[in-house]
Every structure is written in C-alpha cells, then in structure tokens.
C-alpha cells in the first residue's frame, strides 16, 4: 500500500476545554492557539505526524462539544465530521475521545454518547497531572473494561505527555467498534454514575483554590471592582511601560534611515527610501512594544481562566444591551483584532446574539488603531500625573476605549429594539478551573503576535507606503512652482477632492490622503501621514509636525473618527464569510461610516466653539 491509503485518520473529540488542542499540538508539533475557556477551537484543524512504526497519521482537532445535539455552529462541525456528514471529510478511522480527568462526571457522558455511534474509538484521559494533584484516583484498567474501549493517560501540557497515546494508536490499528445502541439522556448519566462509582475515587468536588478565588472574584461588589481595575491597569501599562521602548525604536529607525539616505545620491531613490520607507514604516514599527504589552495581558487573562468569570459578571448588563455574557470573550479578542473576534463568535449558540456581536465587534478598539491613538495622544495630551498615580495619557487612551465600548452597547441596544424575534436567549456557560499561565505558552503567543505585526509592516504596509510615495511624488511640480511638490501630485489632487467632504470634520488634506490606504490596514494611516509630511519637506518627526501644525480640535476629531474607523476591508470580508450575507456587510460599513462622520463632526465643532 502507498501514500494516502495507508494514512490513519484520527479525530480528537471531547467536551470544551478538556485540552484537545494542547494534545493536538503535542502530537503534530504545531502551535494552534490554546487558552483556558470553552470554545477556543472553532474550526476543524488538521495536522500530521509519523508514528514510531513509520505510519503516517492525519489528526483532526475538532471544536469542543457537550453533546451531539449541537446548539452552536462550532458544535455542529464536530457532529458532522464524526458522523460522516461533513462535506469533503471522510469518517475518521479512529475517534480519540479526550476527557478531562478532573471532570469525568460531565465528560464521560459525551464519551458514552459518541460510543453509541459504534465507531472505533479510544479514550485519552487528559490532565492526569492535575487529577493526581487533587487526589483523584482512576483505575484505568477497570474503566477500559467498563467502557469497552482502550483508555490511556495523557498530560498534554508536558513534553512527552502523549507518549502512551501515540504508542496505543500505533499498536492497536484494529479497534473493535463499541456496540451501537440508543438510550435516553438520563440513562447515559446513570451509566456514568455507575462507572465512576466502580472505577474512580475523588476526595472533594472542586479544587479548594477555585472556591477561594471565586468567592472574591465573583463577589457582586468586589468582583466588579477587580474587573474594572484589571482593565484600567492594561491601558495604563500600554502607555507607561512602552514609552521608553517606543522612543528607542523610533530613534533607531530614524538614525538608520538618515545613515542610509546620506549614502544614496540625491534624487527619487533617496526620497523613496528616506521619505517613503523609513519615515512610513519606522513610525508604525515603533508601536510594536505597545501591541506586545496589550497581548501580554490578553494572553495571561485567557490562560488563567478569568475571562469566563468576567463574562459571568457582565452577563446581565450585556443582556440589557441585547447581548450575552458569551459575547465578552469575542469582544475582548476584538481589542487585538476584529477578525479573530468575529470568528470567535461561533461559540455563541444563539444566532441573534451572534449576529449582534459580529456587528459591534469592529467598535472594540483593535490594536491597529493603537498607533493612531498613541500618535495623537503623545502629540496633544501632556505627560502628566493625575491623583498621584495615574498617567493622564493613559486616562485619555482608556476613555477612547470606553467610548468604543459604550457605542457598541448602544448599537446592540438599538439592534435589540428593532428586532422582531424576542424569544428567550440562553447562557449556560461553563466556568473552568483556574490555571497558572505557563510562561512558555505566553512567550510563544507573544512571539507569534509580534511576528504577525512585523509581517504586516513588511508586507501590506510596505506596499501601501511605497504606493503612496509614488502617488505623492508624481507628477512632479511644474517649473517655477512655489509650493511643495506634493501639492501638485496625484495624491495631492485626491486629498483635495476628499477634503471637500471631510472639511466639516476639521480634517486637512494630508489626513484625507492618509484615510485612503487606511482602508486596507488602519496602521497605514500613521505611516501615510509620515510619508506625506516628509515629502512636503518637513524635517521633524511626525509627532512634532502634528503637534505644531494641527489644531487640538482637528486632533480630537480624528481620534473620534478612529473610535468608529469604518475602514478595514479584511473585517468586512470576514463578516461576509461568517454570516454569508452581503446585506450585513453593507449595514456594518454604512452604520460605522455614519457614526464616525457624526462623532467627528460633533467633536470638531464643539472643540472649535470652546477654544
């Protein structure tokens, strides 16, 4: 036999948050995202490994599910793959059921439900290290005998923790199917109870430390105060920790640009390198520290198991606004980028809740907007300490994020009011055990996020910056012209044309130019401004130019614009893919543009009247 015919197809199936993806990463040597909440994996993921026998094994990682009676889009994927109804995906040769050894009461029921399908399967008891620490003793031999399938122990977060599983998959290619049958739900639970009584001994129901933490963190008053403090700390840290690093990178790149520029002959090439690439890219790249600090916090929150607690605390408030506590995690992800946030809404079972969450996710301030905020805040808001401990710039940044959140809640509330279907929405959300974030996982996550940002800078942002340089440099100024050459260029013409639309918002024509490439990537607005001003003959850094040439009203108006920032093509494409509807895309783009225009108009006119 050759190639594909000899490949063993296995699928990892189990309850949410039992460590399937960690196990998948361990088996296949990949780095799929893992975190401590239900619903991290929302798509089927595929990987390969070569077994010790030399046999090729194709591994599918499926989204977690509580039951084959799926209630959300991600659960439906799992059901369809293992029952052979997923288009283009053959029924797996072997189902590897993964169960959290500390939570067998719940997880074994799903194992029994899958066993009823009569497919070849085995059970991987994951998190055995945590089970042992809690004094849970499992007689795996007896369990295997009762279940009628092989049972292996795994520790997915430890190197070599899947050794027994790999050996077992390799050694037992012919697995005897479990006899198919159908029984009502209550009977499965009764069977689980009987099996557990005979094979497992558990000293106490939950980890004592979870009880203790939850008493504080879920306290009606204290819990909300802690949540607000955590969120506020993140924004403080983004500003106060990153500033020295930011300034260092900025200075280094500028120095490199000048050094390189000095060695080039005066002319178009030198202008492209110094005014285009270094002025543009350097300005964006300097925001890497801010983005990494934001992600450091998000990753730690994800790993610890705190996020579902925050969702619990906020559920009632979000319900009032027409959302669900479950919207919290997708919305928090949207602070990094709306695209993964919108995809994460697949774990929301109610289609109405899911659509509302998708429509407001772009209002969460994504990290691509951070460079714009940071530039304007640094230029216009004095570096000052308020009330002894708070950084004024951090407070303004926090306010901008809050403005996005408040607008999102208002939009959700409006959607709820105009919606006709008012039947019950469900929550039913599992709160996992707390876990200490693993430094290695955090570092890997930071490295990957950092690389994504650097690759964006090196790819799309570089391309747009160079394109903008061309548009801004040609055609050149006519002989005897007194204004800077850019005024006569194509970009200058486009900028002036758009200026008629955006003048009531206080935007100058340089800003209007920057808005156009900002459609593809928001950070480009900053690099574009840097390029435009550099070509216009300004020698200072962008921040100094902005501080001296713009009015405060213009800066505030642009900040207000970016709270809504309707311009991100990738987000619109993701909404189209996730909802399969052009109408939703048009509604989203239309309402964002409308709100952005109104907010900027109001901000500019009020600020001008006051000054």
């Amino acid at each position: 036999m050759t190639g594909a015919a000899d490949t063993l197809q296995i699928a990892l199936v189990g309850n949410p948050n039992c460590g399937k993806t960690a196990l998948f990463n361990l088996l296949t040597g990949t780095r799929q995202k893992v975190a401590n909440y239900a619903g991290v994996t929302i798509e089927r993921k595929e990987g390969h490994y070569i077994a010790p026998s030399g046999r090729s094994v194709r591994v599918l990682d499926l989204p977690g599910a509580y039951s084959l009676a799926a209630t959300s889009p991600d659960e439906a994927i799992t059901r369809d793959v293992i029952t052979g109804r997923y288009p283009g995906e053959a029924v797996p040769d072997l189902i590897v059921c993964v169960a959290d050894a500390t939570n067998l009461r719940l997880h074994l029921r799903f194992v029994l439900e899958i066993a009823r399908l009569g497919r070849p399967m085995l059970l991987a008891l994951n998190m055995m290290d945590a089970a042992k620490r809690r004094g849970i003793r499992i007689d795996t031999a007896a369990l295997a005998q009762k279940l009628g399938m092989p049972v292996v122990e795994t520790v997915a977060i430890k190197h070599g923790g899947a050794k027994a599983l790999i050996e077992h998959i390799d050694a037992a290619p012919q697995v005897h199917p479990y006899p198919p049958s159908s029984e009502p739900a209550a009977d499965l639970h009764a069977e689980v109870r009987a099996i557990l009584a005979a094979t497992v001994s558990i000293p106490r129901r939950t980890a004592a430390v979870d009880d203790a933490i939850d008493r504080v963190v879920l306290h009606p008053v204290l819990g909300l105060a802690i949540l607000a403090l955590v969120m506020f700390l993140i924004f403080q840290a983004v500003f106060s920790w990153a500033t020295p690093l930011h300034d260092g990178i900025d200075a280094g790149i500028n120095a490199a640009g000048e050094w390189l520029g000095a060695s080039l002959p005066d002319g178009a090439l030198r202008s492209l390198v110094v005014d285009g690439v270094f002025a543009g890219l350097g300005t964006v790249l300097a925001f890497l520290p801010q983005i990494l600090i934001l992600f450091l916090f998000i990753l730690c929150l994800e790993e610890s198991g705190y996020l579902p607690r925050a969702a619990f605390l906020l559920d009632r408030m979000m319900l009032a606004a027409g959302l669900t506590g479950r919207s919290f995690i997708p919305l928090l992800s949207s602070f990094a980028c709306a695209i993964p946030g919108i995809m994460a809404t697949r774990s929301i079972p109610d289609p109405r809740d899911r659509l509302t969450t998708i429509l407001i996710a772009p209002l969460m301030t994504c990290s691509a907007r951070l460079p714009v905020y940071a530039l304007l805040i640094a230029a216009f808001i004095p570096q000052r300490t308020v009330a002894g401990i708070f950084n004024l710039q951090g407070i303004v940044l926090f306010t901008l994020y809050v403005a996005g959140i408040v607008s999102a809640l208002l939009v959700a509330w409006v959607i709820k009011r105009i919606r006709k279907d008012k039947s019950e929405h469900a929550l039913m959300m599992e709160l996992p055990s707390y876990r200490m974030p693993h430094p290695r996982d955090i570092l890997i996550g930071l490295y990957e996020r950092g690389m994504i940002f650097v690759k964006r800078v090196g790819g799309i942002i570089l391309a747009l910056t160079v394109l903008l340089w061309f548009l801004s440099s040609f055609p050149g100024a006519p002989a005897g012209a007194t204004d800077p050459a850019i005024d006569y260029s194509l970009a200058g013409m486009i900028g002036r044309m758009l200026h008629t639309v955006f003048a009531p918002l206080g935007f100058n024509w340089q800003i209007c130019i920057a808005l156009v490439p900002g459609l593809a990537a928001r950070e480009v607005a900053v690099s574009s401004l840097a390029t435009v001003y550099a070509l216009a003959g300004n020698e200072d850094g962008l921040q100094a130019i902005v501080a001296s040439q713009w009015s405060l009203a213009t800066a505030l108006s642009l900040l207000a614009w970016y709270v809504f920032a309707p311009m991100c093509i990738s987000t619109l494409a993701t909404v189209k893919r996730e909802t399969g509807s052009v109408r939703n895309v048009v509604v989203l783009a239309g309402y964002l543009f409308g709100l952005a225009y109104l907010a900027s108009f109001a901000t500019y006119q009020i600020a001008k009247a006051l000054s």
Partner: protein
Amino acid sequence: MRIGVLLSELAMGASATVIEVTDNGTNDVIARRLRDLGFVAGEPVRLVARGPLGADPLLVQIGYTRFALRRAEAARVTITVDSTP
C-alpha cells in the same frame, strides 16, 4: 427538606438534589442541553455565586463543573433542597 423547589429559588451556598428538568413548550433546546450537562434526577447541585445585577446569572456547581445559568434557565430545574447541617 423542601421538595419541588425551582433551582432559581435556591439560597446562596445551599445544596440541593435535582428532581427533573421541565421543558418550556415543545422542542425546548435549552431543557435538552441542561439534561446533557448533567441536570438529571438524583444529581447534587449547589449555588456558588450570583451575578452582581438582579442576582442574575446564577453559578451552579453540578458534579465537578460550574455552570453559569440565567434565572429563566435555572427555573426549568426542579430540586429538593437539602436540610442545612
């Protein structure tokens, strides 16, 4: 011991035993999911926490798992409240 109480009426920190989950109308997906999650006759439950606004949602410990349920969801579960020790 009180029999036939709704889970949504359980006092903070109190323990109880599930009697049954009642469907709200026909084809009640929420009731079915509650049963899948382990809310079946004889299962011990405990109310661990309540949300800050209107004491909603409820955090219910069942088996080794904690589920956040809204009041309307918890009201589908009939319980027997254990006598406090």
